[in-house]
Each structure stands twice: as C-alpha cells, then as structure tokens.
C-alpha cells in the first residue's frame, strides 16, 4: 500500500490492549485519544481503526496505491509532493505520490489516518505496537482502502493549547500522604514545565521537589500515575509504561488531564489541581 522512505518516530496504534496488565502487558494505544478519534470520524472510518502515530520528525512515504488520508496534530509542513496541506482535513494521494507528514511540535503526538477497513491480525485484542509484544511493519499495512470517500469535508482540529498554563486535574496518589508538607504545598501552588523527555512510556517534568520518600515495594501503576524518584524528579507515566513500579506514586492524572498533557509540548506550563 505504501513504502516508508523515512519513518521518524512512528508507531501503529489503536485505542490499546486491555485486560492483560496482570501478565505485565501495558495498555499501549494512541497517546492523544481525542485526536485519534477525530481522525477516524473525519475519514468516515469505524471507530478504533488503527493509524500511524508520530512525534518530532514525521514520516516520508510513497503511495503504492491511491488512498484518502487525514493528519491531525500540531504539525507544520505537511506536503503531498511539493504542495503544502493542512491538518484536520481529508486529502487524496495518488499512486507514486510522495507524502511528507510534517514536523510535530516537540512533546506532542500527531496522527496519520487512512480511509478504509483494517484487515490485519490483532495481537491480544489490539493492533497497537508495544515493545516485546508486537511491532507492525508500516510497509506491510493491510488496509482495505475505501475510494468512495464518504468522508467529512469540514476542516476540524482538536483545540490545542498555546502558551497558556494547562490545569491538570488529579487524584492524590497512594503515597501522597507521605510527602513532606513543603512538597505538597509546592505541588499544589507552583507552575511546572514539561521537559524534553517525552516518551510513550512517560513524560518528565523540569522542576524537582523535596522528596524524602524511599522507594516502595513494587506496586501497581497506570497511565497518568505521577512518580517521584529519590532525586525528586517527577515522571508522569504514559500509555506504554510498565504495569508496576517501585517509585512512590504521588498523583494520578484524570483521563482528560492525560490528554491535556500530551498537547502541552516541550517547555509547556502545567499546574496540578489536586482533588483533596
């Protein structure tokens, strides 16, 4: 269907793999679920149709067959051959055309969806790439392409933040009560910034907090769990994070807060609104 000329930081994702955490298998799945869903809606695809997720540098692909596609995300410089295209709109790519999916704002994730029905084989109920579980070869995607184009002609895009402080609703984590009073105050009152360490496994914040908590016996974690390392570094676990961890769990982001965090970008300002 397509040949990947340059893959950048790309993976194949649907909404994730659920029900296997007891075996140590993470959820995986699209980092920005709203953007992922919107892409399928615009394309007229069935919900949860898998697509390519990418970050930082995008992909350059050559179409071996014509297909309809849509890109959603904070992306610049999407090009079909040399023509600049926009995000949030469905376009056509002809046989032999070269598509450059553009450059993604650091720390955010973009989606390249394809109009059609995916005919691949699910691994444990999902198509999502996950280290040690499954890795899809993007040169061998098995789409039954839809050329009749029952797609949405509007141009849409999720609301992306720009420069404003993003408020993240969160629950106090299991180890929150053990934090020093000053650390709790700092977490509630200060503004934090997202570092450039933004992986599918987790995002690290720039600021550190006073931490005197020792490591804990390995205990369950989920996407959105905020861990605090012995050096006071705060790590927000994401979709590919392992199922248990040994760092104290100080906060737990809500689902919406996770989606807001994946749109903040490197250096973005964050405030934690802790439900207490």
């Amino acid at each position, binding site marked *: 269907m397509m040949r990947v000329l340059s893959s950048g930081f790309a993976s194949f994702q649907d909404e994730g793999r659920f029900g296997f955490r007891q075996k140590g298998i993470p959820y995986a799945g699209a980092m920005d679920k709203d953007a992922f869903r919107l892409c399928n809606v615009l394309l007229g695809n069935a919900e949860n149709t898998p697509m390519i997720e990418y970050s930082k540098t995008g992909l350059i692909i050559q179409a071996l067959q014509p297909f309809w596609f849509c890109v959603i995300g904070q992306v610049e410089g999407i090009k079909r051959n040399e023509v600049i295209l926009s995000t949030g709109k469905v376009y056509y790519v002809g046989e032999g055309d070269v598509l450059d999916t553009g450059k993604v704002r650091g720390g955010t994730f973009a989606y390249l969806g394809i109009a059609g029905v995916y005919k691949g084989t699910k*691994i444990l109920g999902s198509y999502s790439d996950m280290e040690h579980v499954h890795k899809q070869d993007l040169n061998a995607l098995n789409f039954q392409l839809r050329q009749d184009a029952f797609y949405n002609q509007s141009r849409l895009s999720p609301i992306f933040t720009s420069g404003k402080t993003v408020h993240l609703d969160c629950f106090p984590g299991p180890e929150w009560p053990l934090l020093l009073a000053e650390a709790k105050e700092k977490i509630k009152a200060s503004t934090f910034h997202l570092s450039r360490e933004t992986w599918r496994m987790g995002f690290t914040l720039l600021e550190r907090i006073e931490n005197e908590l020792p490591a804990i*016996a390995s205990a369950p974690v989920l996407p959105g769990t905020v861990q605090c390392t012995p050096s006071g570094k705060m790590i927000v676990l994401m979709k590919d994070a392992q199922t248990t961890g040994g760092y104290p769990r100080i906060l737990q982001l809500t689902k919406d807060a996770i989606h807001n965090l994946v749109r903040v970008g490197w250096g973005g300002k964050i405030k934690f609104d802790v439900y207490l």
Partner: protein
Amino acid sequence: MDLHIFNAHSLLLKGITSPYKWIDYFDKLRPDLIDVVPSYYEILLVFRKELSDMENIKERVVDCLKSEIHNKKTTHLRIPICFDSEFVLDEERVERYSGKKLKDLKKYICSEHFEVAFLGFLPGFPYVQGLPDLYKIPRLDSPRPSVPKGSFALAENQLGLYPSTSPGGWNIIGNCPLPLCNVHSDEITLFLTGDNIQFYEITKKEHEVMQHYPFSRKRYVV
C-alpha cells in the same frame, strides 16, 4: 485493608497480605472489571467505566473479599536453570552482600519452593518470593543497558526471569532456556500469579537443547 480511589475508574486495595491469593475473588465483578493487578501488598482493580456510585462499588468489592471461594488448587511448576559461569554476571556481588558462596545460594534455590507474587516490569516477568533476608542484595547502581533473554535474576530478596532482552538492574545469577512469554499462545505467559515454583539445575548442554523448545506451560506443570 484500606480502599483507595486511584482514579475515576479504578480502586486500589492496600494492606493485603499475599494479594496473589485473592485475585480470583473479584471475578464476580466482571465484565465491568477489566484488570486485576496484584503486587506485593496491593491489588489494583480497573473498571471499564467511570465509577459513578463509589459507595456501591466499594460495598461490592468488600463483598467479594467475604465470599467463600472453593479452595483453588495451586499450580506447581518445575523450571530448569543453568548456572554455568557464562550466564552468571554478578557472582562477586552476591558473595559480597550475602557472605555466602554462589553455590550455597544455588543449593538453596534448587531445594526450596517459591511463589510467583505477581507479573510486571516486562510482559511475563515474574516477581518470585521466598528467599530469606540473608540474600537481600541491592540492584546495580546503574542498570545494564542490555540483560540477556532468559536471565535468572536477584534483587533485594526477590527472584525474577527476563522474558526478553532488555535493560535491567537486577543481579544476574543464571539463565532459563524456556520461552517465558508468547503472545500467540492461549496462556501468553509461562508463569501466572500464585504459581508455586521448584527450580532445578541443568547443564550447559541441556540448556542448549531446551532453548529450542516451543512455548508451553503445561509441559512444566508437575
């Protein structure tokens, strides 16, 4: 026991002794319940939807813990380990921290029974408990970038087995030739939470042969 609201659709049961013994008690809550994740002292219950009636769900969870459950039979597994020097990367650390020779540790491991407390870290990686405090050996100061597949490892007084090559900070004392995880099989993982394991020593030659065995759990059940 204490119930902690983890997020809008998950509850954490804290302060439970031997969580692995309790995981089947929550089957009543399925299909609303999608994940039951045990660890050393906690069980995380993840539900499909947001829990709108928290009081009701807490009651149902507590109810599960009271329910009579037919005594589930423990599965016993016999697992081969090769202690050939090629696979032992941290003999010096083991001897320094425990004051015992590696061969004493080996003897202990191959004569006792151990329990799989839970799986985590990597798909199919078992956290195995049952070693005495004497063998509390800290993790490496900085993790190795690549620990070989099958590595039989020790950290604090836990044992573990690496299903695939990965970075890791545990002390490596041997190697298991068997496939530990296969996402295309029904069981998926060789070990399950609550398994009782007996380790036995194999030679380098046997290790070479067993490396080619296909994934199977049944084959190692006693």
